[in-house]
């Protein structure tokens, strides 16, 4: 262990990653849990299930066995859309626009909290 897989003398270190499957795989769902009232749902992991009811039941059983949540969302993984990783450059640009930040502006002490 160490969860690192020990490589026995004479054995190759790489493992196979794909293989032929018989039967159908269930679709994947992303799971979001609201830990308690007053805060947003937070992404917590994913699971496989044939339909939304089963996905919800599995999400409850897997991710909220100890009162970790008061509400659960499941969303088909294929319905989650994101920018390409390259788009990160756009976020860097946003950082340069410091005039958008309140801390840019100096307010005279005399006027108090603003």
């Amino acid at each position, binding site marked *: *262990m*160490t*969860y*690192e*897989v*020990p*490589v*026995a*003398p004479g*054995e190759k*270190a*790489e*493992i*196979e*990653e*794909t*293989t*032929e*499957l018989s*039967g*159908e*795989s*269930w679709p*994947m769902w992303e799971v979001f849990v609201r830990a308690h009232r007053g805060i947003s749902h937070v992404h*917590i*992991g*994913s*699971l*496989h299930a*044939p*339909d939304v009811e*089963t996905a919800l039941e599995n999400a409850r*059983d*897997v*991710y909220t*066995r*100890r009162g970790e949540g008061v509400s659960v969302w499941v969303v088909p993984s294929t319905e989650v859309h*994101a920018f*390409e*990783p390259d788009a990160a450059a756009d976020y860097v640009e946003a950082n340069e626009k410091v005039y958008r930040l309140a801390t840019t502006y100096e307010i005279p002490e005399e006027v108090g909290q603003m």
Partner: protein
Amino acid sequence: MVVMSPEEQFQAIIDAEDKIEPPDWMPDGYRKTLIRQIAQHAHSEVIGMQPEANWITRAPTLYRKAILIAKVQDEAGHGLYLYSAAETLGVKRDEMQELLHQGKHKYSSIFNYPTLSWADMGTIGWLVDGAAITNQVMLTRGSYGPYARAMVRICKEESFHQRQGYEVLIRLCQGSPEQKAMAQDSINRWWWPALMMFGPHDSDSTHTEQSMKWKIKRVTNDDLRQQFVDMTVRQADYLGLELPDPDLRWNEERGHYDFGDIDWEEFWHVVKGNGPMNRERVAHKVKAWKDGAWVREAATAHAKKREARSAA
């Protein structure tokens, strides 16, 4: 402005103690090492249900039975968290599982030892989950975000596993001489395999340097093993049980316990698939998967029927 290569950018994120997240560029070796490790970790959780499930029907009280069922259910959950983390690297859960069934993926060797007495339920929680926690606490600081987050959830649950196991042993050690002897016999059988859980000596462990640089691994095998021994001796003393190692003694100079040599021949024997339970564990897993086929097929058919109905 200095333009960094993708590899330099990747290493800079890691050096800054930030996490690598699924869409990030990563070296192929990093991805492969993680898949190998997370898959084996997931398989370990799943196969790890068997030795304890073996005692569910024979737990001495309804209370202990409920605890054991909850623990085994947790391990199934741990497997799921981990498969879910591995899937962010582009491998499919069903394929990982199929490769386990084909004997092409490994799982932790500790689960290839049999559970012969009720005391083993105590010892597994105390020593096996205890060793797992030592490893997994380190892994919460790993560089790959989804894996580290799964580890945080798992560690919270493992604490219950270890404490309930230790409590089983406290009760046995406070019981009749026969009960205490049963506990001692159990420790005698599990102590060395538990130490083997930390893997080969650093000097014999491949890729340690690279894994440390990538922060997939943050503490070496021998250091983790030492940490585990140092913590465990007091706990054994409290139980009044003896750890089966004549060389175990406090070393004032090192500030650690010295301990005897691990039987590495046995270690590699089990890793290579020849332990007492290797064949049975995988065969049982394959059988459970096959026996459950009709349930999966029915659920798929049901989902399709409902979809067709709502489309109509």
